[in-house]
């Protein structure tokens, strides 16, 4: 099931913005939990994007419940280069809060930048819904200049998102 989900995401990625693909790793010691990310020689690596040097780091943790994949957490980082510290935007989500007193939205994004008064806004937790990867791909094409592989990319993403597993 997790492999089907990863294949589903790879189809969306490989038909639109990247030739890289996500792998599935069963989380050691837990037969129902899986991590999805790009792995090269057992190391995580960001997805290469068509037409730009920036890249996208993706990590999803999913659990299979009643035959369906449920996202436990995700982290998407749009970054200037392969270094994770070069992030420009990051979308993060956890199904359950890391702390009972956690005050922020469980789905949120961070934007690297400054407000007009010069203050850093990096650490703001800007609330978002649970973001499917397809919406991140849309952002990469529409806003960040990634060259889509297919003229029909919007239809591909819309169709893909319809079958997104929550």
């Amino acid at each position, binding site marked *: 099931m997790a492999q089907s989900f990863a294949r589903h995401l790879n189809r969306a990625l490989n038909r639109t913005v990247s030739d890289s693909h996500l792998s599935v790793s069963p989380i050691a010691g837990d037969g129902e939990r899986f991590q999805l990310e790009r792995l090269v020689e057992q190391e995580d690596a960001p997805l290469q994007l068509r037409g730009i040097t920036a890249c996208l780091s993706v990590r999803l943790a999913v*659990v299979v419940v009643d035959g369906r994949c449920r996202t*436990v957490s995700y*982290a998407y980082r749009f970054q200037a280069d392969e270094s994770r510290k070069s992030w420009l935007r990051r979308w993060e989500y956890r199904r359950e809060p*890391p702390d009972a007193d956690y005050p922020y939205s469980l789905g949120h994004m961070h934007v690297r930048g400054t407000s007009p008064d010069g203050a850093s806004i990096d650490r703001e937790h800007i609330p978002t819904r649970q973001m499917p990867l397809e919406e991140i791909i849309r952002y990469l094409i529409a806003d960040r200049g990634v060259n889509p592989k297919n003229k029909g990319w919007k239809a591909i993403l819309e169709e893909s998102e319809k079958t997104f597993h929550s």
Partner: protein
Amino acid sequence: MATTKKRTTTAAKPVTRAKARSTSKGVASTRTKARRDTTVAPIVRFTPKQWAAYLERQVQREVGMSVAEFKRAFAAGELDAGDMDVFYVTGLLDISRNGHSTVA
């Protein structure tokens, strides 16, 4: 005591249909490229030791401490869960404070 030869599980290199095609055909044809989107997601299996080492590297890179140090400091309330890197690592390690379960 009888000893049995354990089958060692190693992290197999991912094998994809696309790779199989490309190795058998040499230079990929246009038609092959057009079908590349059907790539099967490779399964990469870590042994428990490899998984632990993977987590150590990740946590060290993200917050500059070991998994054990992070877990201790997080449980003791010394780390701010609102910090984006701490949040990331709690997701990676699938841990939470105050009895929260990550899978409802």
